């Protein structure tokens, strides 16, 4: 089964499940249609469209799209086609997930320093002491400057850590 058909099936399954959940919603006496009315239309339409995608794909009508067809931000046209580094993407998402988890416990300043340092090292492993120092300075500078600009200058609150209390 092709990638598009799988995507269509996932969307179809999700819309059917959500549609079933809307059947439990009680109608409101104040409006002629209840809170489930519009979601049922949307979910029914989505189920039909995704089913159309699956059927169309199985019948072989739509052509396969290039992998980045959804992204409008075109990069340099001369960039050589390299094999996508999905491991790096997965690790980057993982590190970002850890950052999100650390924010409420360690607080913005420590978590941001650790994230920026860790992420920049992950994306481009330093090959010298100067490179490591650069990553360290980047982490410290980002953490300090964002805190200074947002919390001190613009009065935008940043996450505080339960463990660190700042």
């Amino acid at each position, binding site marked *: 089964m092709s*990638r*598009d058909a799988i*995507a*269509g099936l996932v*969307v179809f399954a999700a819309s059917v499940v*959500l549609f079933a*959940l809307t059947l439990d*919603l009680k109608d409101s006496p*104040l*409006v*002629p249609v209840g*809170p*489930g009315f*519009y*979601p049922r239309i*949307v*979910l029914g339409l*989505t189920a039909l*469209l*995704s089913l159309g*995608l699956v059927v*169309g794909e199985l019948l072989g009508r*739509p052509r396969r*799209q290039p*992998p*980045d*067809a*959804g*992204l*409008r*931000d*075109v*990069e*340099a*046209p*001369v*960039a050589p086609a*390299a*094999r*996508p580094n999905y491991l*790096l*993407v997965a690790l*980057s*998402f993982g590190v*970002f997930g850890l*950052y*999100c988890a650390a924010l409420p416990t360690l607080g913005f300043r420590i978590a941001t320093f650790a*994230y920026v340092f860790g*992420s920049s090292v992950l994306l*481009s492993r330093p090959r010298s002491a100067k490179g490591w120092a650069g990553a360290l300075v*980047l982490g410290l500078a*980002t953490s300090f400057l*964002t805190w200074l600009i*947002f919390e001190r200058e*613009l*009065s*935008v*609150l*940043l*996450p505080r850590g339960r463990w660190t209390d700042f």
Partner: protein
Amino acid sequence: MFDLLATALVNIAQFKYLVPLFCGTLAGVIGGALPGVTITMTIIVVLPFTFGLDPLQGLATMTGVYVGGSAGGLVTAVLLGLPGTPSAIATTFDGYPMAKKGEPGRAIWLGVWASFFGGLLGGAFLILATGPLARIALEFGPWEFFSLFIFALSMVAGLVEGSLAKGLVAGALGLIVTILGNDPVMGQKRLTLGIPALEGGIDFLPVLIGVFAFAQTMTEVERMGGGRKALAAVETGVKLTVSHLKVIWEIVSRPVLLLWCSFIGVLIGVLPAIGGSAASMFAYDQAKKISRRPQLFGSGVPEGIIASESSNNANVGGSLVTIMAFGIPGDAVTAVMLGALTIHGIQSGPLFIQQNAQLAYGIFAAYLLAHVLMVIILGLLARVMLRIVSVPKAALFPVVLVLCVIGAYALNNTMSNVYILLAFGVLGYAMVKFGFPLAPFILGVILGDQIEINMIRAVMTDPDPWLFLTRPISGGLLVASVLSVAFAVWQHRRQQKKGIKPVEDDADF
């Protein structure tokens, strides 16, 4: 109208507004010049900086980003052959050959001044058309608004290149996001999936930030280590000095080209979710068609640069019209601006210009002044820009994502928006990998609540569903929706028959 504009120009020229406008324009020029960083990402990064500012300061900053970004892409497009933004792709066709022929200064300044004049023509349309269009929209009832939003959504889904089915599914997925959490009419809980964070519904800004920031950064991350040419080795000693009067004369002596390409830019800007890239490509194609020497296009002719750059900056004016008159974002940048308005408690849509005349004219003034600042910034920094664009992405991307976290967190000071950002970041990247367009998805997320609210209002006013079809404007818009999808189906089939490979959708949404 002109009194208000003059007052707004004087107001925006004050230090208090000029500094954020300058900073925004500078950020836009730099973001636009960085290959792989688009105007959308730049405005997402700038968004949290506007939270602590007053509404006009914030919107002036964003307008500056938009104007600066639309022109910034031309620097690398001309000097390196690498378009900084999708809207500068067409500029490379003639800008880069002209620079290679030993006229980099002429190529750059043709682009800068064409952006300036195109932008001003777009500004004239913005100022003159927003009010009358908003007055027309004021006559709309819930039936018409419902149909207008459906029309916008169907047009975006239909206009995406590639698979129409995927465009429609993406739009429907965007609508699903808005039905999770609560009912926007009565506030009743629904489809929370047992997640407390969903009980208040999902804010569209963390969704938008997550989808675009991750879709773009992770697509770049997956290419890292692929042997891409480093920009650091670029020649930065190029001479960019030119006679500005001569360059300006080269542009204004082609009034038909300038006006027609700016008109194309404005028109495409008014249509939701078709960005500057489509405008510049279409304008380039038109310039070639109306030229007496089309065979020279691509070899470094000034017409190619003028067409591309005038249209992509005029496009900004068109995009701002739709958001200010109808509350429908013309692209991702105006979608973020819409979010910024919401944060400051300002309702966009037809009443915006009437209820917030000072703010609306402030945006017009900021738009006009941003073009002047853009010329100054590019004049001072064009050469330095080549050094700026060599900043390593390993350093840039973590900082960008930290700013995205701040933007999401600061919306209501809760971590739930940060988790939503992450969840939609994963979804956005997955959508890109599965070839689903992001534009209809985002428009679905933005318009979903309004579609539901207007539908329920219409039914509450009169339960007759035929009114959606029998009221002339509403019916006309619904017919137009069907026609736009039918046209897209016809176009896709025709392309299939001819064996034309669909072009990647380059809209800046």
